[in-house]
């Protein structure tokens, strides 16, 4: 074993990594935003609907949760255009996939959050004469937000890491950038070590931001 670590080649192509991490964050943020809209909407519908609607939402959640993300990415990018006549670039395809994937996980997070709102608070809202919609808007959602923040942090970090899967359809995010440099330089240890550090730092920064939010909105019960 006489391997000499050398990062020179990595720094030379560092733009692939810096561009990559920004794209990773962008993919994650867009997918989380769309996924949050899907998740919140379906969670609210779920808790206020009958069995049939609930069954449909559960089916969506269970389907997504039991199929590997990698497979979904292939299905949407390669499969969908052959069935339906649409064309889209790899990034868009991945955002669609990750949004639908995030939505399923977030339905569960928001649903358990809505269920965890203390019944007494809803009684208080009812007793003062708030309509169901006003109770949702002014009591249930604000309380739920505070309850779900810790679980949301975990989901957000997972989704950020899941953007690495976009590399399989050549979306030039961080992992793809690392592969690209590796293919050029064969500096496998160095490039993946640097990439790991970048994931760690970015992930930690996201977590740190969310922890600040949690502290600000902590709910006392």
């Amino acid at each position, binding site marked *: 074993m006489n391997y000499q670590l050398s990062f020179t080649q990595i720094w030379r192509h560092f733009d692939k990594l810096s561009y990559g991490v920004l794209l990773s964050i962008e993919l994650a943020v867009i997918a989380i935003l769309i996924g949050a809209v899907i998740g919140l909407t379906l969670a609210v519908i779920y808790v206020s609907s009958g069995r049939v609607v609930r069954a449909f939402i559960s089916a969506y959640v269970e389907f997504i949760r039991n199929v590997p993300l990698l497979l979904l990415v292939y299905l949407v990018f390669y499969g969908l255009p052959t069935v339906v006549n649409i064309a889209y670039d790899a990034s868009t395809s991945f955002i669609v996939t990750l949004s639908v994937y995030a939505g399923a996980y977030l339905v569960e997070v928001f649903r358990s959050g809505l269920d965890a709102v203390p019944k007494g608070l809803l009684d*208080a809202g009812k007793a003062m*004469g*708030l309509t169901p919609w006003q109770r949702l808007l002014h009591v249930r959602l604000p309380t739920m937000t505070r309850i779900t923040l810790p679980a949301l942090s975990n989901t957000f970090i997972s989704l950020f890491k899941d953007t690495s899967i976009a590399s399989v359809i050549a979306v030039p995010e961080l992992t793809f950038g690392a592969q690209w440099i590796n293919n050029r330089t064969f500096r496998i240890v160095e490039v993946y070590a640097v990439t790991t550090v970048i994931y760690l730092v970015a992930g930690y920064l996201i977590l740190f931001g969310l922890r600040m939010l949690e502290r600000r909105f902590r709910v*006392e019960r």
Partner: protein
Amino acid sequence: MSAIPLLKISRLTKSFGTNQVLKSVDLEVTAGEVVTVIGPSGGGKTTLLRCVNFLEAYDGGSIKIDGREVGYTDNAGGKKRGEVDLAAMRAETGMVFQSFNLFPHLNAEQNVMLGLRQVRKKPHKEALEIARHWLDRVGLSHKTGSLPSELSGGQQQRVGIARAVAMDPKILLLDEITSALDPELVNEVLDVVRQLASDGMTMLIVTHEIAFARDASHRIVFVADGSVSAQGKPDELMAEVANNERLRSFLSRFSATAH
């Protein structure tokens, strides 16, 4: 001018599954009256109170506030009112809870303002003035900006009272409002209730504070085993003890624990 009762409950029944909690309750409260409901735990006191603003749907009989049937368009078994109608109806009553139930994301002022803004549709400035007025009345003018988590139990409950009375309800329902408080905080809350009573607020109070019931209410209603077992002015009820076995054993248990 014999007063028409503001609240008229007749032959009220309510079951949870096979457990019949209320077996034909009759009760009237006239405007300005303070009526206290006492009785053993599990006797249906809280359920009775929660039927009055339809937090619990009752099964039979009738509850009328100002002549209007609560919860149903006719009697129990009639058509249930729609959610918006129910909400408007509940706004006529105020409720204070055993566990305070303040909204944790809103400060004291905002807790009081929510109903004024959303239900009474008051402009922001007016709602703020009303909220500050009532927080001042309950002795919390220095805590208007505090979150519930920053307040003691007694302070939280006083915000709870301010939140309910600020809506100018026809009747105020108090559900064991001192049961969750440390003993030394009970009086600051009861003092507020005494003040409201002397202002002429109509109140239906469920409590375990027998001494308070005796000196603050016009009438005491003893509910046991799902129905009204005895009622009367405080001294009348105490005179009743000799003839009412259940009342006697209930009150004796109380004086036993008081020592």
